[in-house]
């Protein structure tokens, strides 16, 4: 609460401006707020002459009658609304555009990623040591899911497939033998149709296991493939679980995109 100042002088109206220059009016205020307000004060107006098309005036009067207000008031109301809208337009439009473009971009990206992930490419991570040193563990690749939409896996392709023994697990191996070919393992080497397969990518000794056993030759059935890990000493592959079908193949391992060596 400010201490109220008083002045004994009766000031001339002409002196008022100078008086308020020197004194803070709030210090002369009587403390209590008056309950009265400027209830009859109307916004300042300026008279203008306006020519409007007759049909516009007729329509305006019709709308005004419906709302039970004078058409001049309605005209001012419409004018005010439009002016407010126009004054806000650049900012609002900019904001709306940004929101709309961001939403479109986000939806497009989502759709693109969903479609890509499901049907075109999928990021995968190499795990385990069966493809070392060509495919180190924890390196990331793109899996080309359309690679075999038309054609078939070829010898040397590295493919991802669902395990015949554990359908929920995916494996990462190289195609070694194609449908109709005879596979044999002897002396640490692979033989396809009786001919030793040149495998510059393989490391370790290729030991026979179940499919085939030593000195045995097995034929790859139609629509099936014989796949082996590059690291022959440390790979669970077709030697253990047999052939995989084309339906098991999810896609062909494509380029490395992360943690590549």
């Amino acid at each position, binding site marked *: 609460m400010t201490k109220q100042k008083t002045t004994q002088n009766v000031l001339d109206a002409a002196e*008022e401006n100078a008086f308020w220059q020197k004194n803070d*009016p709030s210090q*002369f205020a009587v403390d209590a*707020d*008056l309950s009265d*307000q*400027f*209830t009859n*004060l*109307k916004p300042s107006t300026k008279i203008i002459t306006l020519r409007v098309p007759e049909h516009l005036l007729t329509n305006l009067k019709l709308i005004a009658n419906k709302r039970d207000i004078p058409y001049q008031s309605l005209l001012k109301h419409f004018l005010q609304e439009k002016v407010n809208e126009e004054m806000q337009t650049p900012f609002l439009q900019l904001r709306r555009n940004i929101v709309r473009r961001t939403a479109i971009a986000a939806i497009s990206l989502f759709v693109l990623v969903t479609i890509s992930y499901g049907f075109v490419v999928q990021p995968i991570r190499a795990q385990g040591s069966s493809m070392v040193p060509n495919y180190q563990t924890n390196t990331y690749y793109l899996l080309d899911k359309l690679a075999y939409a038309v054609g078939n896996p070829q010898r040397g392709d590295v493919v991802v497939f669902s395990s015949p023994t554990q359908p929920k697990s995916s494996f990462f191996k190289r195609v070694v033998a194609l449908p109709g070919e005879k596979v044999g393992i002897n002396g640490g080497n692979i033989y396809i149709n009786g001919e030793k397969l040149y495998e510059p990518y393989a490391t370790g000794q290729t030991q026979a296991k179940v499919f085939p056993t030593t000195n045995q030759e097995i034929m790859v059935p139609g629509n099936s493939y014989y796949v082996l890990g590059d690291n022959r000493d440390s790979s669970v592959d077709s030697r253990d679980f047999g052939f995989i079908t084309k339906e098991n193949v999810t896609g062909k391992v494509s380029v490395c995109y992360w943690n590549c060596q």
Partner: protein
Amino acid sequence: MSTSFITSAESIDWSERVQKLLQKAKVTSQEVEEVFLNFPSVKKLSVQFSDGLDRFYVEGATDMGKKLSLVVFVEAKKIIITYIKR
């Protein structure tokens, strides 16, 4: 009571003298008008003037929240502004 003058006010005087006050305070007539229409605090001032009209200290805010202080009196249903401060 003299406060009835407040309610009787129907318009604001925008004479050249008031325009100078507006310019000096760097506010617009629209902002001042908004203060009057936004239920400002109105206090009577104890200062007496030879014209016999009471001065009122009006404190309020514009639509955009700018706070203004004004000294006014009411004559012939018109608000006469004699002081504006932001």
